[in-house]
């Protein structure tokens, strides 16, 4: 088992933060510039150099084609997803799809998967910690939005491995925040965590019972964040430039990034002032003349621009409270997380929605990393003194004939949890079935997010009502899904950690890790910690990729009479390691 300090990393859409525990007290580790947070931006220089952080952020304006920001919005998504299409339209770096519907970022002649991009950020955070602590750091807890699905969680975990980290746990951001808030205070409270990040929104309702942190319900929107607030302001400014000067700034990446930076600065200024002057001298050259931007923005004006976005967050809050069977009156505390919650506009709206002032002693930029550090420390030490009881944010479903998705494990179920159900093939004499796994709240498969799929054969074909296929579904403490299919008669089994996630197969992942290690050696960098041989149960990517033409008849179906399955039969099935380590291809901490 590796030794040394453990860290907690809040891998954010816009900014990341790292913390640790020193002498039983959490401490945020600032970067070389003394800043507690570091921009989650990766810039690729012409000479092959890679920079991360605020330096890289400056490159967004100078070299937008080779500077990647907001990668978190893309991680664990398929190339056909809405978010990827949207990013392709607005991002200046090149986003390409792979044959198996994975997503890659093309930089000059190289292509990077999203976990590789995020790994650059994680590596930077690891190095910040190592510089501050003066020793090697290899073990970390990495946080993700509570509403992240299995693909996004797996991909984040992969990023950690690529960065040379032993990922002790993937932890939900709001849960981490609540842990930081309640740690060591012996509280008996019901709290809500309102977490508006750069690109995602989460809300979790927790019951804190001294050392137990029970998540009662969580809800979220992975398409809503501070970036969207910026976008509104950018639209306003771009329109202003168009009207007053007749120039479309959007066609000029350099000018557009300058406008974007100014909008962000203006938004932040409104946290302190009632109004601000947004100025960009020399924004763009137009017909031989220099166009300057000067715009007076008031807080009221900004409020009007984003009020519908704020309303959308409260719809999500309604949902979470309803799922927890609570009303705002049942809550003892409101915890705000994420940079955008510094905006007075949001603070006021939150106060009026919950009928309560939010906690003021919490730093919304650092609280998640602090919680992650506390949890990392607790996992690494023998005497665990806090217990996190989390839930799965989305209903886990199986695709059945007729384009439907049968609910198997409902959202807000406590994790870890498992469930076994009997299905039949969709038609007589079928030799193979396609097990398709979804997450989401729609009854139709098209309305949910596809996690992955695999083919199962080896059972005795027969009339459909006589063939039984047992499908087991498990969700680990980290929210990672594993599904297996089994013929109860023959015992033939096929199982997989459902994830084509990053679009990286275990072999590809290993190759990246190897390559990274070779590069480190070549650059004279200390060798990355050995992550050990992966004993992969992850299915080959080819079988996991969604098929182009869905063969309806290959699917499973509900049995005519639902077989009552009071208990999972004792098969020779390998029990699911709760920590998901071995089965997801991770190394076993005990064997290192």
């Amino acid at each position, binding site marked *: 088992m590796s030794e040394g300090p453990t860290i907690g990393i809040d891998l954010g859409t816009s900014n990341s933060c790292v913390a640790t525990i020193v002498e039983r007290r959490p401490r945020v580790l600032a970067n070389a510039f003394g800043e507690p947070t570091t921009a989650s931006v990766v810039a690729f220089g012409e000479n092959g150099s890679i920079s991360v952080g605020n330096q890289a952020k400056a490159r967004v304006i100078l070299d937008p084609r080779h500077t990647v920001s907001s990668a978190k919005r893309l991680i664990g998504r398929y190339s056909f997803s809405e978010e990827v299409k949207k990013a392709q339209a607005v991002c200046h770096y090149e986003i390409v799809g792979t044959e198996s519907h994975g997503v890659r970022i093309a930089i000059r002649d190289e292509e990077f998967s999203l976990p590789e991009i995020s790994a650059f950020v994680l590596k930077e955070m690891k190095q910040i910690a190592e510089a501050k602590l003066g020793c090697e750091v290899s073990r970390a807890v990495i946080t993700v939005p509570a509403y992240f699905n299995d693909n996004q969680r797996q991909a984040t975990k992969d990023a950690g491995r690529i960065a040379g980290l032993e990922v002790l746990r993937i932890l939900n951001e709001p849960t981490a925040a609540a842990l930081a808030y309640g740690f060591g205070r012996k509280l008996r409270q019901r709290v809500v965590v309102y977490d508006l990040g750069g690109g995602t929104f989460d809300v979790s309702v927790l019951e804190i019972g001294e050392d*137990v942190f*029970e998540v009662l319900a969580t809800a979220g929107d992975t398409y809503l964040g501070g970036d969207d607030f910026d976008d509104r302001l950018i639209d306003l400014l771009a329109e202003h430039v168009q009207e007053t000067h007749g120039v479309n700034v959007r066609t000029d990446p350099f000018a557009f990034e300058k406008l974007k930076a100014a909008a962000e600065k203006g938004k932040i200024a409104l946290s302190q002032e009632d109004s601000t002057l947004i100025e960009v001298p020399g924004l763009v050259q137009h017909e031989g003349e220099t166009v300057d931007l000067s715009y007076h923005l008031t807080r009221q004006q900004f409020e009007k621009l984003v009020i519908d976005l704020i309303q959308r967050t409260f719809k999500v809050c309604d949902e979470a409270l309803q799922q927890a069977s609570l009303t705002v009156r049942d809550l003892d505390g409101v915890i705000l997380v994420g940079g955008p919650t510094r905006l007075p506009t949001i603070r006021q709206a939150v106060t009026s929605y919950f009928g309560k002032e939010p906690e003021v002693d919490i730093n919304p930029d650092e609280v998640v990393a602090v919680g992650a550090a506390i949890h990392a420390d607790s996992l690494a030490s023998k005497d665990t003194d806090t*217990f996190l009881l989390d839930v799965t944010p989305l209903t886990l479903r199986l695709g059945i004939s007729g384009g439907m998705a049968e609910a198997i494990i409902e959202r807000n179920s406590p994790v*870890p949890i*498992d469930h076994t159900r009997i299905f039949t093939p969709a038609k007589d004499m079928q030799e193979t079935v396609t097990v398709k796994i979804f997450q989401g709240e729609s009854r139709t498969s098209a309305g949910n997010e596809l996690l992955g799929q695999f083919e199962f054969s080896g059972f005795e074909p027969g009339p459909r009502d006589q063939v039984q296929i047992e499908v087991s579904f498990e969700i680990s403490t980290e929210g990672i899904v594993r599904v297996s299919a089994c013929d109860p008669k023959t015992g033939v089994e096929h199982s997989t950690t459902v994830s084509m996630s990053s679009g990286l197969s275990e072999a590809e992942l290993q190759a990246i890790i190897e390559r990274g290690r070779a590069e480190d050696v070549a650059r004279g960098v200390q060798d990355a910690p050995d992550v050990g041989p992966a004993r992969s149960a992850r299915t080959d990517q080819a079988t996991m990729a969604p098929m182009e033409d869905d063969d309806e008849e290959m699917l499973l179906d509900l049995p005519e009479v639902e077989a009552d399955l009071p208990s999972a039969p004792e098969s020779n099935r390998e029990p699911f*390691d*709760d*920590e998901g380590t*071995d089965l997801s291809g991770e190394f076993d*901490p005990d064997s290192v």
Partner: protein
Amino acid sequence: MTEAEIRALSRMLDRLDYYKLLRIDRDSTAARVREAYHKMRRSFHPDAFHGEARDLRSAVGEISKRVNEGYQVLRDAARRTAYDKGLGQGQLRFSAATEETMKTAAAAVGGTTANGKRFYAQSQAAERSGDFATAISTLKMAMTFEASNEHFKQKLADLEARAPKKPKDANPHAIRWPKS
């Protein structure tokens, strides 16, 4: 709890009902269920076994999963009622079939036919406004469409029992002639 005891518990999960697993009485309140749940999760939290032997971790994982399953059923009043019913017939675990039965029963509460639903809703509205006579007459209408709906039958008996007993001539506004 010793490691041997943990392993033993993980092997006997299939012989325990959710109450026995959480070590609570069948009539425990919701607050008691939660308290017992927290206690069990504290004792068997996978985090506390991080870095322990693999088989011990998997035993703890199996216990955690079953404890969560039990809690998910017992914390929900409707599921708990359905589970208790099945438990009477020896079903130790809540299954998809139980869930289905429960949902069918829940649907039957509000009526299963369009007309049944419509009259039942009218009956409920009348009951809320305290108009028992209308509540009873509309419920009877609903029952003409769903004669075998057990919930409707119970509801009718309930309404008739609660309806104020009125004397034959109950109109308070009726003009009474002085007795002569």
